[in-house]
């Protein structure tokens, strides 16, 4: 007897996507705008979050969810500047998923938050495949990583709303073709916003912060 073929047509990520939708509803009910921040390890995710938090002080109430394979080093740094933070340890997992964010959201007082940064696990491949319920997706690329990253990881560059190029104060010492890099990124993602930032000199921070303010002030 030959086997019968039964159509299924069901998304493999359906269960995660359903939880992400629930997270989104919870965030919306509390008027929180959530930003999923994705980058490779060492790109400067935590440093950018810390600098941004200082720049937004008194203007927006922030909270941070820190995703890491292990340790609470990043959440400790965020709490040290007076911003609520929840650490998620993925125990080897290469990305955050919607269920982990759900658990983190339950530990925050969302009525006292306007803007939530979700720092994903350092990884340019996996996080982009797992919706969390975020409103905005941001990738970070640091100048020392090189200008060829879009060639290797088109999946993430084509799927984010904005890209922050960090450590631009190092450009004079590093062979990084900013124009070609931006041309390539825009070919993958014509609508992407690109910011050039140095958390050391403060260059570009105002433009980035102003854009964040437009996100939370949108109706």
């Amino acid at each position, binding site marked *: 007897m030959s*086997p019968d073929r039964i159509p299924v047509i069901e998304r*493999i990520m*359906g269960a995660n996507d359903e939880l992400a939708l629930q997270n989104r509803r919870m965030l919306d009910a509390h008027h929180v705008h959530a930003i999923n921040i994705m980058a490779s390890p060492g790109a400067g995710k935590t440093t950018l979050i810390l600098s941004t938090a200082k720049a937004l002080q008194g203007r927006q109430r922030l909270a941070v969810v820190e995703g890491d394979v292990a340790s609470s080093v990043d959440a400790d740094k965020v709490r040290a500047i007076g911003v609520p933070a929840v650490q998620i340890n993925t125990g080897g997992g290469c990305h955050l998923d919607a269920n982990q964010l759900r658990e983190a959201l339950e530990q925050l007082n969302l009525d006292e938050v306007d803007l939530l940064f979700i720092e994903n696990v350092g990884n340019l491949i996996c996080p982009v495949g797992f919706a969390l319920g975020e409103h905005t997706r941001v990738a970070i690329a640091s100048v020392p990583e090189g200008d060829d990253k879009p060639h290797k990881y088109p999946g993430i560059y084509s799927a984010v709303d904005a890209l922050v190029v960090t450590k631009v104060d190092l450009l004079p010492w590093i062979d990084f073709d900013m124009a070609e890099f931006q041309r390539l990124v825009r070919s993958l993602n014509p609508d992407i916003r690109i910011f050039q930032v140095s958390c050391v000199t403060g260059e570009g921070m105002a433009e980035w912060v102003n854009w964040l303010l437009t996100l939370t002030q949108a109706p």
Partner: protein
Amino acid sequence: MHELSVTENILEIVTRHAQQADAKRVVRIHLVIGELSSLVDDCVQFYFDYLARDTIAAEAQLVFERVSITLRCPHCAHTWQPDSADWTCPACGKAQATIQAGREFYVDSIEVE
């Protein structure tokens, strides 16, 4: 690492549909995986063999239908499959491509007895 949780999802979907169809055994599972999703096939079959061993889908074979990235230029309507991460339209030179295919990630069908 995340292939394990993805494989759990696949097994859950497959066993649910097989039970609904009153199947005795799942022989083959057809998956449609776009080039922009990151699943690696060999290790998924390995995880699947382990996770499915006491289920209706034990020893089922995973069949991967890979979908290449297909882009479309909104200016000149050219469609093409890129061979690099430069998605500038090769016909008109504008960089406004939209993704027509390549993000697929679903269980298409199962073969059961």
